[in-house]
């Protein structure tokens, strides 16, 4: 893991914020990908490079081999992968293709909120409805979490991944650990 070796987590010295219900995830390769999903060349290139079909339905994710794509907008996705060379997989688009690939691995840190009260804590922190009636595994939203811009993805039954801006990460983690207190 050469690239992440020298990176510092914003949570250094703040380990007391974390518990079984709230954990920081390790650094992950994140790539912002833009392009026209109606363009067959673009779709084919992404599929060949990542072995992944981009989600076209809003607020959904799709999974490929070793990576997944989060819908951010009608022509914008966040590709997440464990392999730090993810951006270089997309470094050579076909000639003339209108697309953009940006390595944003350092942009956001990922927090995992889990357990029976995960949804209660989200409801305290965010104005959106996360009831299973309208939200579920494989869905993702961009919204405000404790007034800070965040991407919220449900990765399992009561497990959520929160993608928070690096510079807001400690504040959000402190907010969430405080929000969890009443349930402990």
């Amino acid at each position: 893991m050469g690239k992440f070796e020298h990176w510092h987590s914003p949570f250094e010295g703040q380990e007391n914020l974390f518990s079984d219900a709230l954990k920081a995830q390790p650094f992950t390769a994140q790539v912002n990908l833009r392009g026209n999903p109606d363009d067959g060349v673009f779709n084919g290139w992404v599929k060949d490079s990542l072995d992944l079909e981009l989600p076209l339905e809003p607020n959904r994710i799709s999974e490929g081999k070793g990576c997944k794509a989060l819908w951010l907008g009608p022509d914008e996705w966040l590709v997440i992968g464990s392999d730090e060379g993810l951006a270089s997989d997309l470094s050579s688009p076909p000639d003339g293709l209108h697309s953009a690939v940006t390595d944003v691995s350092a942009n956001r840190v990922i927090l995992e909120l889990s357990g029976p009260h995960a949804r209660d804590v989200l409801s305290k922190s965010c104005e959106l409805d996360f009831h299973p009636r309208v939200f579920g595994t494989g869905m993702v939203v961009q919204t405000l979490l404790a007034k800070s811009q965040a991407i919220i993805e449900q990765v399992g039954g009561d497990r959520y991944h929160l993608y928070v801006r690096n510079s807001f990460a400690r504040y959000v983690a402190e907010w969430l650990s405080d929000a969890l207190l009443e349930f402990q």
Partner: protein
Amino acid sequence: MLLIKCPWCGERPETEFHYGGEAHIERPENPEALSDEEWANFLFMRSNVKGLFRERWHHSNGCRRWFNVLRNTVSHDILAVYRMGEKPPVIEPAEENR
């Protein structure tokens, strides 16, 4: 608080959006041919409607797309939401007087 239906993301709270002012203001074809007054009119003068108003909103904390909203400035009722480049929907006079 308003609940605004983003054409892509669906209904979201107003706090996720930024207001973009009056919609459908066309940039003059030949700005250099305008007098200072005409140019100032284009830049600064906006209508201040009591009733139905076509306005732009930006889903800044969501999908970051601009779109148009048809809103009643008296009741805050949102009558229609449509994407950039789409024609504004025609609203019956009965609706307009609500």
